[in-house]
């Protein structure tokens, strides 16, 4: 018989895994991440346990900190909800950044042009929300249209659209909408264009929570959600079932872009009070992680968005309290993301170690 050389560790696809085990692996991976995250802290010469306490304390320790953490989570959650239908359809929309920015521009237009006329806050909010949705929808529709018509690569297309949107804000900042000449800053909106606070955080958190429910229902119970899911599995089957694949793609991008645009409105109107070129600030990319880690489940997105916000806010505190550079904070959140993505891998695959006895066979 031939000598068999089995490697020490092998991978095998899991036939099936029960839900409880899957969640155990997910929680385990977070623990592993926390342990790995200690390394850079140790290297920076600080006590990792103290550091973790500071992260928790700095993000959740006081009512004020919690508010700031929630404020970080709002756009993450909103945008994750927006891109979920696209990803379900296997349309790789990485242009949320641009769609947020475009929504912010449209909403700011209303704020700047109509704000000084003294319209009541409710009217302003509705107008700005609609404008933001239109802006984002428009920015999402363009790559959707080209994908449906000419089968262009949506990944590149949406990515490029991000830079255009940011460029437009830069132009507005330095030109038509500039406040005091030379500042390159757009002045703060009038108070009727600002979202009020509820429980100390701008009311965007209520809006995104409502959106969680809407997106959940949309994806799971509506005809349109069903169409999206079928296309994600097989475009040919969708055609066979009489679905207009091109139109559904464009429509989904309109929907997704509109939600991003609404987030853009909330950012200028609630979080920042004005428009600047950094309005999206990477949320469009981080939200992809949120959507992916939550397996496109809207309710899971609340938890994941909060978790990422806690790390973000906590690390910022860490940086000011201890002598730990910002880059270390980034490494910690990076490790966490890595471990959580790796854990999805271990849910699908298992490791098989070579047994001594069998190795001798």
């Amino acid at each position, binding site marked *: *018989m*031939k000598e*068999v050389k*089995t490697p020490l560790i*092998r991978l*095998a696809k899991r*036939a*099936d895994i*029960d839900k409880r085990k899957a969640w155990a692996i997910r929680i385990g991976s977070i623990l592993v991440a926390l342990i790995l995250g200690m390394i850079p802290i140790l290297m920076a010469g600080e006590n990792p346990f103290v550091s973790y306490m500071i992260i928790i304390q700095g993000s959740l320790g006081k009512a004020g900190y919690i508010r700031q953490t929630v404020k970080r989570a709002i756009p993450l959650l909103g945008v994750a909800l927006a891109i979920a239908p696209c990803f379900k359809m296997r349309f790789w929309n990485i242009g949320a950044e641009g769609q947020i920015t475009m929504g912010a521009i449209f909403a700011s237009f209303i704020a700047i042009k109509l704000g000084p006329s003294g319209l009541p806050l409710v009217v302003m909010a509705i107008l700005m929300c609609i404008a933001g949705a239109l802006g984002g929808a428009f920015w999402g529709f363009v790559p959707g249209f080209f994908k449906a018509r000419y089968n262009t690569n949506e990944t590149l297309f949406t990515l490029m659209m991000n830079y255009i949107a940011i460029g437009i804000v830069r132009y507005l900042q330095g030109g038509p909408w500039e406040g005091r000449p030379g500042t390159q800053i757009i002045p703060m909106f009038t108070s009727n264009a600002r979202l009020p606070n509820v429980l100390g955080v701008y009311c965007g958190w209520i809006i995104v929570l409502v959106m969680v429910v809407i997106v959940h229902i949309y994806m799971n*119970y*509506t*005809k*349109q959600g*069903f*169409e999206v*899911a*079928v296309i994600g*599995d*097989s475009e*040919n*089957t969708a*055609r*066979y*079932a*009489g*679905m*207009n694949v091109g139109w559904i793609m464009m429509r989904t991008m309109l929907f997704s872009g509109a939600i991003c645009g609404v987030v853009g409105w909330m950012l200028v109107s609630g979080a920042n009070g004005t428009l600047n070129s950094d309005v999206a600030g990477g949320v469009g990319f981080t939200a992809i992680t949120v959507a992916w880690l939550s397996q496109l489940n809207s309710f899971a997105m609340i938890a994941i968005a909060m978790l990422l916000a806690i790390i973000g806010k906590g690390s910022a505190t860490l940086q000011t309290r201890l002598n730990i550079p910002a880059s270390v904070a980034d490494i910690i959140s990076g490790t966490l993301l890595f471990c959580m993505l790796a854990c999805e891998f271990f849910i699908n695959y298992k490791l*098989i170690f070579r047994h001594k006895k*069998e190795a001798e*066979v």
Partner: protein
Amino acid sequence: MHNAIELKNIVKRFGKVVANDGINLEINYGEILCLLGENGSGKTTLMNMLSGIYQPDEGEILKKGEQISIRSPRDAYSYGIGMIHQHYHLVDVFTAAQNIILGLEKEKMDIAAVNDKVLEICNKYGFDIDPKKKVYDMSVSQKQTIEIVKQLYRGAEILILDEPTAVLTPQETDKLFKVLRNMKKDGKAIILITHKLAEVMDVSDKVAILRKGKYVGTVNTNETNPQGLTDMMVGHAVSLNIDRPVYENPTDKLVVKDLTVIDSDGIARLDHVTFTAKTGEILGVAGIAGSGQKELLESITGLQHVSEGTIQFINPDGKGIELVGKTPIQISKIGVGMGFVPEDRLGMGLVGSMGMTYNMMLRSWKNGKGIFFKKKEPEEQANKVWKNLEVVTPSIDFPVRKMSGGNIQKVLVGREIASRPPVLLTAYAVRGLDINTSYAIYNLLTREKMNGSAVMYVGEELDVLLELCDRILVLCGGKVSGIVDARNTTKEEIGFMMTTVGGLKGGNS
């Protein structure tokens, strides 16, 4: 002498599903063993354990009397076991030879030597491939040949073929069997999975039978017959006759005139095809694979761009509705009911990641007003199909992709028949189905016919076409070679018409 391979008491479970439950199997060198069993009886699973894709939960595998453990496809290679799966894993832009050495260690990178060795293997067993040809230029049967040669190149002495004939024409099947006999003479052990009993009788020495994951027994081929095998497989006696009742007063249902389809390369896939399908009739469509069968059915359902010609759907009041130029949605909106069982089940007819309920919904998701879909009806329908067609699945929410091939097909056919469409189009409806299920499908089609549907049956087994259909339309290179009365024709005549337009005496109808 020891057996080439012996399996003892193999058990394999997937969660709650017991796919293999105490299987015993023996195969000798210089022998062809057929593995027979209904859909979902665990044939593929069992073979996957020999090829290292799964590991058994219990039981032993012995090679030449010594216990071995096969824990990866690489292990399987080293034990000389090679499996040809139903889906091929070839790189399109590589040549045949490049695909054959793909994954081998670098020692064999001298491509000229590889080409020579491949040719040598081909000559030895009677394969017919050009090692320098690129895979994208190849037919399905050529791709299959590469997979077989690949295993031989790696020194396989035990070959497993999972339903290789399901995708072959009768001629190609004959060729494959000739090769298999040569390999047998050369002392290889061959395990063949097929649902076609004629093939089992033709090529095998022994037949091992599985039923619902359990081992029933092994018989010598020359001591049994198709009826005996079927009875063992199903567990009780089944009739192998197809009932062909006559429907009174058939009327025209689909009138197709001069239907022409030109593909993007400018080649005529269908060339002035003219025929009529009637109510209460099964119209068979025969032809060598790729003679325009797919384009014909897809033109009728509105999925295919038609260059020329008309397709009239005749309403019960005698008025015709033109279907050419309409999308599938428009066709269903104007009230033309059409059932369509496409050839590519998971790629076109079903959503693999969803369960039966949502797959039933593919036909009805638009029903009802409002933005929400209605799940109750599809759910009831799924339960009905599950029960009536005896689909083997743990629940109606189990992803259909994970079901066995035959059960996937039952879900598809069950759905298409459920709406009682006046026109029912089927492409290779029993491909990959076991005998029992095939007959169940034949009976369902006949029932639809007797309900007054116009049924079109694109098939590959001429015996079945002759027994099941009322008339047979023979396609040859996109042209209608002739339309014959199935009750008064022979296999030979149809076979001849498949290769020569007009056949022996020219088209008659």
